[in-house]
């Protein structure tokens, strides 16, 4: 299977309600492409100086922030607290996480729009219980070199101490992560059904389809 195992260093950020403004600040939303957001992930926590898309200047690093510390700076699994990704719908937050190299985020809960955006970009989100999350944070605090193995097919997380945590994932989300697919193409398989619905609505609710010229 192409994408079944995610293995790697954990980045623990034990904070609740991390919003998408913090994940990627507004000034980077002026870009018109989907790529290159990794250097700006958690921008205002990572750098001492503000930045924007046009600055080429080197900025001072905030050594206190975890992404600037070894071994976390090369981590690929983020562990964080509840309501991760709240606020703005900006998909740039997911693009930034992915571009940085994050393959999975583990938390007790995620904001709804962020959740959708993540799976659309094959970023795996794993929801576990509060107890399990606490256990992970405890184990990480004992050893910074802390790698997890996530088996998506079996829906398990295995810690270095051989603790195994099971997680739930919707079948289609699982399929998206493992196989990746073009969901527009899948929807367009129902093209005729959509057309029939629309034709019917033109009769039932004709005011919805008045063109601007008719008015």
């Amino acid at each position, binding site marked *: 299977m192409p994408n079944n195992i995610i293995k790697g260093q954990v980045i623990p950020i034990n*904070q*609740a*309600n991390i*919003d998408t*403004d*913090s994940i990627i*600040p*507004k*000034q980077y*939303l*002026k*870009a*018109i*492409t*989907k790529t290159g957001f990794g250097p700006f992930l958690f921008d*205002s926590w990572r750098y001492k100086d*503000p930045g*924007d*898309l*046009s600055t080429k200047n080197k900025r001072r690093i905030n050594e206190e922030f975890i992404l600037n510390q070894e071994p976390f700076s090369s981590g690929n699994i983020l562990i964080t*607290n*509840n*309501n991760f990704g*709240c*606020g*703005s*719908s*900006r*998909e740039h937050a*997911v693009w930034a996480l992915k571009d940085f190299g994050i393959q999975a985020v583990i938390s007790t*809960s995620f*904001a*709804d*729009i962020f959740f*959708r*955006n993540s799976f*659309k*970009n094959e970023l795996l989100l794993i929801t576990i219980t509060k107890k399990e999350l606490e256990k992970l944070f405890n184990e990480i605090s004992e050893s910074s070199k802390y790698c997890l193995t996530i088996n998506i097919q079996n829906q398990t997380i295995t810690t270095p101490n051989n603790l195994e945590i099971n997680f739930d994932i*919707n*079948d*289609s989300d699982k399929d998206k992560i493992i196989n990746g697919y*073009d*969901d*527009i193409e899948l*929807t*367009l398989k*129902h093209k005729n*059904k*959509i057309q029939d*619905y*629309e034709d019917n609505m033109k009769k039932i*609710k*004709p*005011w*919805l*389809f*008045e*063109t*601007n010229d008719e*008015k």
Partner: protein
Amino acid sequence: MKETLYDKIWNEHQVHLNDDGSSLLYIDRHLVHEVTSPQAFDGLKIKKRDIWNKESIFAVSDHNVPTLNRKAGIKDEISRLQVSTLIDNCSKHNISYFDLNDINQGIVHVIGPELGITQPGMTLVCGDSHTSTHGALASLAFGIGTSDVEHVLATQCINVTKEKNLKINIKNQLSEFVSSKDLILYIINHIGASGGTGYTIEFMGECVKELSVESRMTVCNMSIEAGAKSGLIAFDDKTLEYMIMKKYSPSKKYLDQATKYWETLSSDADAIFDKTIIIDAKDVQPQVTWGTSPEMTVHVGGKVPNPDDVSNLEKKESIERALKYMDLKAGQEISSILLDKIFIGSCTNSRIEDLRQAANVIKGSKIAKNIKQAIVVPGSGHVKAQAEKEKLDKVFINAGFEWREPGCSMCLGMNDDSLEPYERCASTSNRNFEGRQGDKGRTHLVSPAMAALAAIKGHFSNIVDYINAK
């Protein structure tokens, strides 16, 4: 079977039920702005896909636009490119676009309802989380990411799993000079920033019936700050009155037919909700946020919380972190917080009623000496024109406010309007997140009347006491 309003709109728009339990939902209206759409149009181009229904789309630039010297165009090269990309995409695909100097231009969530683009019973999406605003007109509206924008452009549909039904029943009436902004901040504090996650909220009860349609928009707008993608309010006479004579409302030919349908848009009397929360509007006082999440709210007569009073370690740490960022002391009186800037605007509070309320407070007064800047940014060209007709612009300008052109402005500071590091702002917007209004900036969310009073006083003060003492 008895249905909630959410059930009704959902069922009417379901094209197909997928194997995984999600639904293919038909989307009636798609609002597009410059920030979250370029990559979606690009995606269509790469795959050589066409747009399903161009007539269902309305586009406008609002996030990146200057609120000064509009005629001079956009100075910032990167912003200019983003706006011109939207203009190019719209002209290429023949999509309705409201130009910067068009009176119809404004914040996407202000112009949608104002122009009658948003109508009761519709499904409506936009690549912006505050799309929940439109639920005030009994339409099922929610924010989506850029991949979904592309999906809706190409298929007119979205694959979504139905949320649960949450009823927030608001009993009694708000006290005089307490606004719907105070109400929604109070509710978010009550249920938490993730209290509505996984739900569609329907706001109902005596209080909601009395609220104007514009006030209802403020409530639905901030549903997302409680984690709910959509907020809903049933159709009633006020909604009907609001819908008449709008630019894109149903024409005379169909108005009766549409009205007949709209009248079905409320939850059945004994519809089942997964959860019900009861709020007493009498308990709501003017609110001020003190922290970095909209749930961190207290009434204006209250104090900043003390983390030592909180036993939950996680909560305690989040309060400590917020106090440090906001540079506030535990137990500090809200009224002692001194301000640097005042922002009246945003998709939450930039409509004509908001401006009237603020102008009413500051009429004949001047902004306090410690206020470095106070700006009013109307939500749309029409709001601006109406305010000028009522001479509200003069009231603001005479008090020392700047009167600006419409846009999102300092709510998120993507244009030139932002806080300098460590500046403190009383803002009528919706998010007090770290850095939201500018790097290291400090935001306190309040109602328009409270922001206006803070401008005069230089610190927070109780609007109810102030007006009663007058």
